């Protein structure tokens, strides 16, 4: 799965997520990626999230929307992302990852899987990673 979250100069937020699904899936299987609130969510008043990982778990946990609601409740982007991803893994015993931007441009990155590739550009500087820590 791939995804992107951006804030433009007008302060508007957009999120995009795209995937081939899971290897060896049944014909006709649909995962979390096209489901708003599961794989993707954007709200200019709060932030934006794109998720990746075990689709059946992400869609049941409404992972992107869970992160939004935690941020709406006052958590910062990173804490909300960490709490929701770990909460999903604890509850459903499968792994996921998410990237988050708050409406103020704060970044959240967390994954309970072994690895997740990510990169962001802020103030013309590129940051990237794939391992924990």
């Amino acid at each position, binding site marked *: 799965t791939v995804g992107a979250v951006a804030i433009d100069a007008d302060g508007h937020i*957009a999120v995009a997520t795209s995937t081939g699904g899971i290897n060896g899936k049944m014909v006709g299987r649909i995962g979390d990626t*096209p489901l708003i609130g599961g794989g993707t969510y954007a709200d200019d008043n709060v932030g934006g999230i794109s998720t990746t990982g075990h689709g059946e778990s992400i869609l049941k946990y409404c992972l992107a929307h869970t992160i939004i609601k935690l941020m709406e409740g006052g958590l910062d982007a990173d804490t909300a992302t960490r709490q929701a991803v770990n909460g999903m893994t604890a509850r459903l015993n499968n*792994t996921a990852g998410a990237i988050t931007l708050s409406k103020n441009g704060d970044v959240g990155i967390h994954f309970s899987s072994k690895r997740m590739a990510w990169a962001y*550009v802020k103030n013309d500087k590129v940051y990237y990673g794939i391992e924990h820590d």
Partner: protein
Amino acid sequence: MKPIIIVHGGAGDISESRIQGKFDGVKVAVRAGYEKLMNGGSALDSVEAAVVSMELDENFNAGYGSVLNLNGEVEMEASIMWGQDLISGAVTLIKEFQHPISIARKVLTDTPHSFLGGNGAKLFALEKGFQQVPPESLISESAKEALNDFLNKGDDQRTEIGRKDEGGVG
């Protein structure tokens, strides 16, 4: 507001052999998205450009290089959302198009609906001028190997793509 963009290239059991390709790909994608923002593009333009970049790159499970279903076919899905007024577009069961994310954006901008699937999504894409590609042109060698591993070795070998490495399943 200073523009900012973040991308991901998938979570899971990413083997050591695929790390460099993922690094290269996410850096290219994030720069493609950032360039849009710096040239006055909207956040929607930016995220579409970043995802389009990764849909062209076989290092990612999207577009060309997508994993295969049990019939050995690519079936893709995508969604896009605009935070100003909470409008969204999504597509699923896309088989013959290079960029599902661009079709999803057209659902957002050009229809009263949020989500199109299967043959309806295909007819909509054709109506909007998206070019069909041969389904086999989206299939990479890595995706074929991953499906063969899955079929030969069973469910514990299921990974996002590639052979199972140690660690959790994403």
